């Protein structure tokens, strides 16, 4: 490498680095802002045969529609075996004569969403909740009652991502 080439390349790369001093910070402050790209629920329309875009996170189970047909359990059977059908004799839903509902073990779930695609009764959805960390492994097992609670709305503001060629990608707050 010639010395002129060395100096020229050095100046170009240092100049590029200096330009980045005046750009905005790329990162978002995570616990203070939530940075999910979408806040919609992942749902499946069995009549049309296609799904609706959304974040594939924790499930939401509509117990008034679940018939206990076990199709979600069968779909999960060879993928991660996270879904288990649980008998709930105390429930009294007219459509669910067998009185069995799915429970999900999030220590095993891979969030592929094929259980949602398997449900023919609009009973299973996936919500944009992915913060499922627990201190005890057994707490990751969600019973049908826990799954049927609608997800709590995260009160932290959403990151307003701004894409600017001159100033970079940054969180505009």
């Amino acid at each position, binding site marked *: *490498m010639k010395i002129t080439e060395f100096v020229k390349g050095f100046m170009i*790369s240092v100049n590029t680095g200096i330009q980045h001093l005046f750009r905005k910070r*790329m990162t978002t402050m995570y616990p203070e802002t939530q940075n999910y790209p979408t806040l*919609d629920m*992942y749902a499946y329309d069995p009549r049309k045969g*296609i799904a609706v875009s959304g974040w594939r996170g924790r499930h939401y189970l509509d117990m008034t529609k679940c018939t206990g047909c076990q199709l979600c359990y069968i779909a999960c059977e060879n993928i991660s075996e996270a879904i288990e059908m649980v008998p709930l004799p105390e429930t009294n839903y007219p459509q669910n004569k067998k009185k069995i509902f799915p429970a999900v073990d999030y220590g095993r779930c*891979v*969030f592929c*969403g094929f259980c949602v695609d398997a449900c023919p009764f609009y009973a299973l959805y996936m919500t944009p909740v992915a913060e499922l960390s627990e201190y005890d492994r057994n707490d990751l097992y969600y019973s049908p009652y826990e799954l049927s609670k609608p997800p709590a709305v995260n009160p932290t503001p959403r990151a307003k991502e701004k894409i600017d*060629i001159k100033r970079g990608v940054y969180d505009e707050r």
Partner: protein
Amino acid sequence: MNTSTNLQGLPGVFEEEVSPEGKLRVSFGPQHPGSGHMRIILTINGDIVEDAIPDVGYVHRGVEKMCEYKTYIQNIPHIERPAIHDSAGTTLPYILATEKLLDLSEKVPERAQYIRMLLAEMNRMINHFYFLGILGIFMGHSTVTTWGMGDRELLIETAAMMTGARVTFSFIVPGGVRTDTPHGFEERLLKSCDYLESRVKTYKDYLLENPFARMRMENVGIIKKEDAIAFGLAGPTLRGSGVKSDVRKDEPYLLYDTVEFDVPSYPEGDAMARTKVHIEEIQQSIAIIRQVVGKMKPGPVKIPLRGQIRGKIGDAYARVEGARGMNSYYIISDGQVYPYRVRVNTADSRNLAIMRRVLQGVRVADVPVVHWSLDYWPVAADR
């Protein structure tokens, strides 16, 4: 302890030792961050590597065998896991081969094929930014590491907007894709592409002009054109040796014959040429995405398949150009709900073949750079 290890075979029990001539045999990995989930047994004379035996198989998980007792749909989530930064490029040939078995290849809607192309090109860019990031950290150039990972994040979130997952999309299924593009997706994708195009110039200035990065990468790990063809290399490693080979051009799948793009290649064959190919390919992917978004028309994105899928009796083969080269799947079906045999061939296992040849004669400090620039990912190679 068995210390009389044979260099030709792979030693089971390995101990570092100095030969009477003063050559040191040392294990590079498997915990070393510069080797990944594998180890390289180096014989070093001073600072020069005299022999390097890649010892692989640490992350073998039996994907091919697992495919034999799962249905065609259940195979999708675990097939994409070995290559996490190229999950669309790994799933796509499996889906294309499955569609041949289901007689669906001609019936897949046009919009679904365009969405598959979008996802494949986005995944190619995600992989190439990841490549630049890890290349930076292997060279000791930590600025490029943070930039590469940061720019990758933009595309990951754009992909997550449509697919619902950041890395393992499980999005391409037999018959089409799972969802249509959500509201505002194309707009955000084009905006990201404009931004990333400006970043490509930054990388060129900062990495390819930088004299210190050039000293680390130029004339390091040279693969000659004849060697690259003889060893059957694939992807950017092959194109970095001056061979213009790309499955998208040679045997167009999806609708790649309707878009215009170049196949970048550099004749030098060193680590720098391979890095240049990666950066040029980001630019070509941006060009493809812009054309595809212009061509997309509203329409169906999936043929609904009812019940359990059964392939017809026979076999099918499909290959695509993944981010790291040609990925191919060969599926034999005996008419059951499970495939009879699935043969996976990834580009990573092809690129491994030349590693011993390339590493002979390089300096010890250059081993991580050569290793990473070969585009070899142990998990996808071991499967």
